[in-house]
């Protein structure tokens, strides 16, 4: 299988603070790739680098074989124009910790916005697809509700439907259940599990170790801007090799 995401020595600094200190990893097509680690370890930043919401300072990052944010000609790198970056982002869905639904639009309008505005899909077609997607995340009856009228779990499921409406080949999840009340987490994880079973390539930053163990194909433990340990989630979570991994897992499990 070829790599959907390939990271070679990725560095990222915010001013003087180095957040990523050389990340090497590979996400295979069709797998569920979980990133865990303490807060401030750089896992969310790395996720945001994948769709170029953050610019990397050093190293190379590839999505589906293409360089993220740059074009290489010979040994020179050319920055991509905003429109070219936008074009690549179409294929990468992203789900945020704080949902970031558009509050002035109903659930259905949130879902049809990008297909209509970016891809030029006809409204009728987009509506039909939105109904399908909202049904898939179990919210067919909430199409006309505004985000403020939905619970956190429902908002996050709409956000997933919104990302799926662009038919992405890769889905990024940035702590999708961290802002939810405990009893609402299950619904969102069910939708994600369903999505994983359909063969979607997913990179998931999460604190849900149960989800990582059951659904994940690979797992990476990050700390201090480096990959500390990686492997099969069941192996890493039950028998961590590294001291830092053991310390972290003893706190969260």
């Amino acid at each position, binding site marked *: 299988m070829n790599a959907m995401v390939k990271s070679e020595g990725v560095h990222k600094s915010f001013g003087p603070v180095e957040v990523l200190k050389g990340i090497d990893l590979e996400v295979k097509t069709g797998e569920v790739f979980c990133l865990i680690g303490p807060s401030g370890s750089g896992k969310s930043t790395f996720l945001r680098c994948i769709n170029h919401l953050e610019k990397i300072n050093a190293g190379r990052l590839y999505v589906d074989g293409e360089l993220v944010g740059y074009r290489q000609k010979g040994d020179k790198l050319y920055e991509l124009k905003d429109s070219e970056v936008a074009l690549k982002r*179409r294929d990468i869905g992203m789900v945020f910790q704080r949902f970031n639904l558009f509050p002035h639009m109903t659930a259905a309008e949130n879902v049809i916005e990008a297909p209509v505005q970016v891809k030029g899909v006809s409204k009728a077609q987009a509506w039909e697809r939105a109904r399908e997607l909202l049904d898939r995340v179990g919210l067919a009856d909430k199409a006309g509700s505004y985000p403020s009228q939905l619970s956190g779990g429902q908002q996050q499921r709409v956000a997933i439907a919104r990302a799926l409406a662009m038919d992405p080949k890769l889905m990024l999840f940035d702590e999708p259940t961290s802002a939810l009340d405990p009893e609402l987490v299950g619904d969102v994880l069910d939708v994600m599990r369903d999505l994983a079973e359909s063969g979607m390539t997913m990179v998931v930053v999460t604190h849900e170790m149960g989800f990582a163990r059951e659904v994940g194909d690979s797992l990476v433990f990050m700390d201090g801007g480096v990959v500390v340990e990686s492997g099969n989630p069941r192996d890493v979570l039950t028998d961590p090799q590294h001291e830092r991994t053991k310390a972290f897992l003893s706190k969260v499990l």
Partner: protein
Amino acid sequence: MTDKFDKEPADADPSAGAVVSKDSGNVPPEAIKAIPVRHYGRWVSAVVVLALVGLLVNAFATAEKIQWSAVGDTVFDSTVLAGAGRTLLISVLAMLMGVILGVVLAVMRLSKNPVTSWVAWAYIWLFRGTPVYVQLLIWFNLALIFPTLNLGPIYKDEMVDVMTPFMAALLGLGLNEAAYMAEICRAGLMAVDEGQTEASHALGMSHAKTLRRIVIPQAMRVIVPPTGNEFINMLKTSSLVYVVTYNELLRATSTIGSTSYAVMELLFVACIWYLVMTSVFSVFQFYLERRYARGSLRQLPATPWQKVKANMLSLSNWRR
């Protein structure tokens, strides 16, 4: 769609009530019958205030020098009505100019390009830092320093022909307003959560589309209320264009006033029309704000008509 939105939260209430009554069992608790606190201070202050208002009204009503008939005779005078119309026209056009230019300036000010950002800053500094009265005079007298307006091959004319009282009024008010609107728009754009821009970009939307479809509609909620205030201010500030001889409401009424020896009476007439215009607009603003509150409030504020209906309903309940 709005009607549906109004009703939805009400659905939650009955179930909450049902839970309470279940807990308290079948015996309803005895209602409290207590003697209410008497607020004597409120009665005293109400009487004092009413007395003062009464004295003031009486002073105006019985003043021998005020010819109230002159007010009644001229309030619908065609010259006055035309003046009021021009006040409305110049206010709307200047406001329109202010809003459009203000949005452009706000976007320039927030741009990453230091030159556009600096130019916008300088514009705001200049136009907000000098009195609009002085600016009006400068536009009106522009012909003193630039006798001809020469835009190369596109346009060339005598400045006195171009800078009519209307043009001086429009430029003076509109360009000044743009500086204030720029700051209002900037505050509105900055009030939108960064996550919104990120989510939009992550969906592959361009900067322009993100601004137009996602950021500006949300910024409107912050922008509309102060913009309404600006327009009400504009309706009144437009009286300053008196000085550039544009024949708006104040100029129309004072011309009649000075020729018919009813100066104060005609100023009252002007006040009546200013009040009518600002009041009508206030109602319009209420509905505009309600429109842009969509999605951010769970329950929209009731319209006056809905309030009347609700009051009548509670009155009939009380009778029962």
